């Protein structure tokens, strides 16, 4: 059983479209991080959310942490081909000393 479920697993959209993807769990996390990973490379940290209900924006990306700190969403406005990649969410369970539990990731393809 996967602790963090990400959906959808695959997404292919046209440049300029908006999209929202999700990261859900039945467990509470002390923090949650989103990463983007290119093929053959390590994950690159996009954002860390800590407080329930917190919203953070990174240019065209908007991240939200659920009120109960069990889930998160990522919204991309006007997607561009450069947004293509694997989006991973990872949570830290309280007391786990920065050990990250990852979801399987969402493969996003943005067509020009």
């Amino acid at each position: 059983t996967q602790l963090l479920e990400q959906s959808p697993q695959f997404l292919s959209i046209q440049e300029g479209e908006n999209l929202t993807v999700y990261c859900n769990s039945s467990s509470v996390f002390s923090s949650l991080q989103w990463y983007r990973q290119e093929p053959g490379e390590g994950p690159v940290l996009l954002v860390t959310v800590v407080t329930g209900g917190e919203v953070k924006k990174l240019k065209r990306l908007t991240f939200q942490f659920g009120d109960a700190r069990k889930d998160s969403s990522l919204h991309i406005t006007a997607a561009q081909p450069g947004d293509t990649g694997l989006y991973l969410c990872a949570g830290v369970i309280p007391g786990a000393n920065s050990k990250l539990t990852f979801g399987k990731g969402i493969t996003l393809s943005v067509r020009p």
Partner: protein
Amino acid sequence: DAGVTQSPTHLIKTRGQQVTLRCSPKSGHDTVSWYQQALGQGPQFIFQYYEEEERQRGNFPDRFSGHQFPNYSSELNVNALLLGDSALYLCASSLVSVNTEAFFGQGTRLTVV
């Protein structure tokens, strides 16, 4: 300011052999964690080192072992390699605190044939 660096970037080994992977953490970081990422999967936690000791361990067999040096760099050793050990091995560095951010290296692609 150098980020997390890993070596080598690619490695091919034969079943039964042993391998050592290396990681230098981001400047100022004192904690190193290792992850295994199989194709099409998210990274899986192997173990974490702080103050030269293993602090936490994931669900990996004893064939996986590690070490942290006084300069905070770290090694991951895998003995008696199996075909299923083929994966991208990622090192992440962080500061010892709750809710801290982890920064990843580019990974070592290990192929076992």
